[in-house]
């Protein structure tokens, strides 16, 4: 045992200092992370924007009933504000606001699902490659390089032409190519993490590679991964928009923002601006929202920002 003086000196914290752990309340990493996130105004704005958009798209239809299945050729191209159509109607008589909600559902679902799929696949692929190193790493990463060298939009078009686009198909197609980014990112992270001293400490205790990946590498790469995931989601939403814009999105009567934008563009010169701006603005807003959230999360996962 140590001398009483020394023990009390350390445990009672006679002179509280910045590093003196004993007299500050215990706060979890999550709690501190949330605090840092909340300090970033833009991130909060982004979060609010996303929550608002998602609420409008998913809860809006419960209060604002529109027929999004049957066309109504008697009420085409009604300008905003005409009886019961706050945002007017489109070329086949669907209510534009209701369509925006329906399209938003598709965009958000595909975006989130494809983003998450890409992140999970990419993280596992990259972590394994990075930690294994050597020829395993070389083989795995050359595959990634090869796929990355093919223009993705071209592939999307090809695939979308072969298979019938549906929501789940879109998720798979986008996910199948979007994982390359996270894979590279996580592989780089794993390469640097595996030489950290805490991994060496664990190895000197007799720990195995599996434990290193599970307990040390993935938890420490999670910050990068989650931040990247938000950008992946934003990208996926844009991909859906691209595909739909090119006419390869989900077939009508289903809708999505990219498809609506594409339809609206055809009407640009007819003066039907309400078909063009709302979906365009919605896409901009949701992508911005995810980028802001990503920025905030990057701060929140940066341990150094919490050290003081």
């Amino acid at each position, binding site marked *: 045992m140590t001398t009483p003086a020394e023990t009390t000196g350390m445990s009672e914290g006679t002179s509280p200092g910045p*590093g003196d752990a004993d007299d500050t309340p215990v706060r979890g990493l999550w709690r501190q992370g949330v605090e840092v996130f909340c300090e970033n105004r833009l991130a909060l704005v982004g979060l609010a924007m996303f929550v608002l958009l998602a609420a409008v798209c998913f809860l809006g239809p419960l209060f604002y009933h529109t027929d999004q299945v049957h066309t109504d050729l008697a009420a085409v191209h009604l300008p905003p504000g005409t009886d019961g159509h706050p945002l007017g109607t489109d070329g086949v008589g669907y209510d534009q606001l209701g369509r925006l909600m329906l399209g938003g559902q598709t965009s958000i679902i595909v975006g989130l699902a494809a983003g998450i799929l890409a992140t999970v696949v990419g993280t596992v692929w990259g972590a394994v490659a990075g930690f294994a190193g050597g020829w395993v790493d070389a083989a795995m990463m050359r595959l990634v390089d090869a796929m990355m060298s093919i223009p993705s939009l071209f592939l999307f078009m090809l695939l979308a032409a072969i298979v019938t686009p549906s929501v789940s198909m879109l998720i798979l197609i986008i996910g199948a190519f979007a994982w390359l980014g996270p894979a590279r990112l996580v592989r780089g992270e794993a390469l640097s993490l595996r030489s950290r001293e805490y991994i060496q400490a664990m190895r000197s205790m007799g720990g195995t590679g599996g434990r290193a990946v599970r307990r040390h590498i993935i938890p420490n790469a999670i910050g990068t991964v989650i931040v990247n995931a938000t950008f992946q989601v934003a990208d996926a939403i844009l991909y859906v928009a691209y595909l739909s814009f090119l006419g390869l999105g989900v077939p009508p009567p289903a809708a999505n923002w990219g498809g609506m934008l594409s339809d609206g563009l055809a009407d640009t010169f007819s003066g039907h601006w309400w078909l063009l701006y709302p979906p365009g603005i919605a896409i901009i807003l949701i992508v911005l929202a995810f980028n802001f959230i990503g920025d905030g999360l990057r701060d929140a996962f940066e341990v150094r920002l919490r050290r003081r």
Partner: protein
Amino acid sequence: MSAPIDTAPHDDDVSGDGGEGRPLLRLRHLSTDIALRRGTVHALDDVNLEVRPGETLGIVGESGSGKTMTALSVMGLLPSGGSVVGGQILFEGRDLRSLPPDEVRRIRGVRMGMVFQDPLTSLNPTMRIGTQVAEPLRVHEGVGKAEARERAIEMLRRVGMPRADKIVDDYPHRLSGGMRQRAVIAMALICSPRLLIADEPTTALDVTTQRQILELIDDLREEFGMAVILVTHDLGVIAGRAERVAVMYAGRVVETAPTARLFRSPRHRYTEALMESLPESATRESGARERLYSIPGLPPDLSRPLNGCRFAPRCRFAAPECRTTEVTLSAGEHGYACLHPVTATTAAASVRTVAARPSAPEAASETGSETDSEAILSVRDLVKDYGATTGGLLRRTSGRVSAVAGVSFEVRPGETFGLVGESGCGKSTVGRLAVGLESPTGGRIVLDGTDIATLDRRERRRMRRQVQLMFQDSYAAMNPRMRVDAILAEPLEIQQVGDASARRARVTALLDQVGLSRRVLERYPHEFSGGQLQRLGLARALALRPRLIVGDEPVSALDVSIQAQVLNLMRDLQRELGLAYVFISHDLSVVDYMSDRIGVMYLGKLVEVGPAHDVVRAARHPYTQALIDAVPSADPGLAASRESVTIRGELPSALNPPTGCRFRTRCPIAEGICETEPPLAGDLHQVACHFPLRPESRTAAAPTG
């Protein structure tokens, strides 16, 4: 803030005109704040200092004491958020805070020079040395390119750079640490400043290089007639080099005095405690090592309002009034800010005179009595080579770096084996080999009677329990996303020791052992101070009840007072649990304090092994002697009286090590025969040298004879 009544010392000479009495630099009531995310840190509070022309002022203090902030405030290089909020910086009688910015810039650029701690980061890697050294000339004096180059070469010569006319066109990465620091000094001196501020100029360097650089600064000070402010945490560096010393604590100067006087009779209780925390203070008198005095607790948080003496919460002699009364520096040559200073009578006890050194029979008998017990770790002819690869696609092995070349030693149960040497000597590699983080290229590692090489993977994993590693930087060695309970339980989980509740019990027991409160279980590593992290690191190393702990520079990153806490703890646990340590450090005084036996390494080879007392006080290898002489001692008398074996030059590359004795290229007494390799010879105090400095001492030879 607590600006006390003006009792600043020596207000008389402020109007003095020229002459010796007039200080070159004078800080009056200097206060500096640094605005951070969470509040403002009052880094300096009412600092009064003066530097006279041509003298060296040492500023010493632990991390966070404000010593670097003082230097940065003078140079106007405060970090973002930092600003001088009060007081005056009088340079040659003019207040830098009230002069126009252009003028201040010129003064700082031409009349002052600064040398930083890390010579690597203070040089621009994409600029040639000459261009960088001459940059101040081009900026402040508008000198042409050709002349600037000439003057850069001239200055590089004066700072002792070999082949200055070649190096002037080299890039920084071609230079070793010591050479880089010379280049940085040349850059600081190129405009012939009146004041040189050196902020920890040698902390990143090895002791032998440190000595060269400190001597260089001394010589240049005389040659240029400039004043030097030497900022350091190392009392030893100050003792040998400074005329006057200012001791800082928590943003204030707590004591200032002529060096000899300060070390002979410190008055402030903090200074006294600091000196008693030095390992050499406990080892000097006799072979038996006393317990180090350690200052309890941590320095105060400077972002909070503080009352009274800032050291009071950690002071042994604090009285109630210490916590409430503001204390200012007393006037006179020896100023101190302490209500209950060390008096002449109490000082006598703490004076550390250079006692006639007894040959310490107790040290020898300690090691002698254990010769029979079987070694816990036995290393035979250990060799470790690393393939050096050339960059590029096809990694061709271009040579072999010989990190460890035939090292043999034994560690017996309950013993501390110290491994000392400069950076790159392979001491850390030996540690990593011993714990099994690396596998040897050749040689045998016998753990507890079992040759590790004969074990299969599972047995080897179980064997790991016997030897554990303690890191220099425990923060880096702990997963920042794991809580303390998970960190301490991890070795138990890996080795599948006990069930969950047994592990929890073991973890709390470990915390008790290292003197940490059980409340820390739910905290994360970043919430701890350096000393607490080392305690946690030790606790984790102890979790599997090992018989040997390899400590790789376990206290090198800590302040002196915290270092004493950790060293005491390590010794207490050793006595309690019968642990053996392999204690690896570059710091000879710490190794001397901790170890029963010491091995000295040079360039992958063990050049000397023997009882700690004999190795340090009667070294037989010229390298060991040079190492000992280079260690700055916190005893001005000793530091000045040393006749020295000085080694010059740089450590040869381990890629093509010298044949024979690897030290012969720098050895002052090397002869032709040194091209053949000397064996490690001797009974207890072994040395690998053809011309040992002295025969094996009687005390060491006695037990076998």
